[in-house]
């Protein structure tokens, strides 16, 4: 279970570029629920994920994960409990190292890294088996550098790596946004499989309205660093893309955005 209380963060405080990125955010996520996070550009949805991952520390407020207060923990320490997939397929894997070496790194997530050889026969066997489950033919390319793979393949491996060990929380930050539609589809199916199979507590930021309504059992819409809507249960399952757009429209109207911004929004979200 994840519990965020009165989380507040201002970047570049006391300068011209001061941004109130997260405004007194309260959020509780039950174990094994799948939360979709949507919002306009700059609404703070990625910032929220980064806050949970520990990329930065809060000005005020607290974060508890699995009954442990992790508010002041640095990013690498939280990694023991949190698996992450980034938007940029280049961010989640080490391009100069082989597939096997990347998986070996993931198999030691959050643990002490000792002087045992990272690759041995039994490890390679395990890697092969789990790569085969992706159905991408990657199990025969263990010794290829990750840099030689496509974005979709890299993202699939990153997803595998993020969930390699037991995770208390899986953070997906628009992890299909940089992929072509087919690869994005494949990654979303893979995500659903893994999340439902392992009953993972998951937060997924997305730009795609279709993903937002078809995935997950709860939806959070963010705006200006605050949670504007929080839908779950029947309300979430009844949700259609049009309803979401209406809600975005409401926000737009309340903010009196000019029409060019509205067009931009539509281009991005429909």
């Amino acid at each position, binding site marked *: 279970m994840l519990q965020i209380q009165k989380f507040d963060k201002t970047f570049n405080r006391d300068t011209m570029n001061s941004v109130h990125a997260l405004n007194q955010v309260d959020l509780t996520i039950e174990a094994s629920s799948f939360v979709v996070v949507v919002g306009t550009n700059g609404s703070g949805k990625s910032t929220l994920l980064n806050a949970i991952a520990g990329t930065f520390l809060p000005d005020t407020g607290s974060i508890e994960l699995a009954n442990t207060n992790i508010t002041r923990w640095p990013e*690498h320490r939280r990694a023991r409990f949190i698996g992450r997939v980034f938007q940029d397929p280049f961010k989640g*894997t080490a391009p*100069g190292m082989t597939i096997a070496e990347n998986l070996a*790194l993931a198999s030691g997530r*959050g643990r002490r890294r000792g002087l045992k050889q*990272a690759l041995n026969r039994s490890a390679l066997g395990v890697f092969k088996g789990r790569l085969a489950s992706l159905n991408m033919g990657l199990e025969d390319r263990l010794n290829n550098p990750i840099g030689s793979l496509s974005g979709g393949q890299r993202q699939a491996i990153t997803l595998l790596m993020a969930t390699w060990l037991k995770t208390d929380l899986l953070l997906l930050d628009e992890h299909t946004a940089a992929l072509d539609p087919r690869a994005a589809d494949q990654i979303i199916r893979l995500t659903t499989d893994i999340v439902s199979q392992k009953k993972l507590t998951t937060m997924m930021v997305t730009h795609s309205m279709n993903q937002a309504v078809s995935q997950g059992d709860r939806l959070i819409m963010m705006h200006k660093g605050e949670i504007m809507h929080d839908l779950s249960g029947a309300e979430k399952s009844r949700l259609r893309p049009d309803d979401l757009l209406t809600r975005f429209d409401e926000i737009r109207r309340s903010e009196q955005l000019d029409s060019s911004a509205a067009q931009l929004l539509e281009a991005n979200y429909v």
Partner: protein
Amino acid sequence: MNLLLASLTIGFILSLLSAGVYISFRIFHMPDITADGSFALGAAVSAVLIVQEVNPVVATSAGFAAGCVAGLVTGMLHTRFKINNLLSGILVMTALYSVNLHIMGKSNVPMLYETTLMTMAAKLPTLMGSEDVVNILGWDISNSDAATFLFAILMIVAVSVVLNRFFRTHLGTAMRATGDNPDMIRALGVNTGNMITLGLCISNGLVALSGSLLAQYQGFADVQMGIGMIVLGLASVIIGEALVGSAGIGLTLCGVIMGSLLFRLLIAIALRWGLNPTDLKLITAIFVLVALIVPRFGGKLTHRKQRSSHASDTKV
């Protein structure tokens, strides 16, 4: 012949330096100029201890350890206090100049009549009953020269084997990933600051070991002997990669050793042909400059070629 053998021996000793520079420059993408200071530091610590009749093995290990400490300081400045990586190196290198003078008490410590690792190695063949002059491939070489030569090879081979194994361990792969993609390895729970600091420790330890052995080989330590060493290490790493590419760590380390030797030989030949030793550092710097620029132009050329071949493809 003696000149060639001496060049190769120094080449092997300096390949330890190159292995150290390889770690900072290629794994962490950081040209760590601490090397200039830690090279002389290793020499100074070992020389002073050897003059005080300390066992040369202990003295050499102390030199290595001193280098590790220098790397530790640079790493801490960079990762804990967020000082730019080049500047951290420059600060430590500058400070080390005074430290080295303090350690030695003067600018030059001779150890011509002391027992060093090199003189121990040189005496070994005679103790084992070898003749004073051995004949290798038709050349007559004094057995002591051959022994120091073999000892230098032994050192770098041992270090390469250990490094090659180390960079395949869980810790070693995490260290390589820190250079390759810090965001990713942080998300996998590794403290990248610690990795960089540990890497710089090992790197500068090797550089200091190289300085210590060179001082023992030439029979003196000098406070100036570290100047330009980082550039020399870079030159070796670059030549090495040009020779073997950068496919794996083991192979690259072999390349780096070959690069050091080749560079030493080039210098020996240039000096033989009448190059003024004053110009040595200038030539080294120009060489590294050219080596850094050429791949860029090479890349452009192949790019253009690909594009033109692409254009012809579309016509067909």
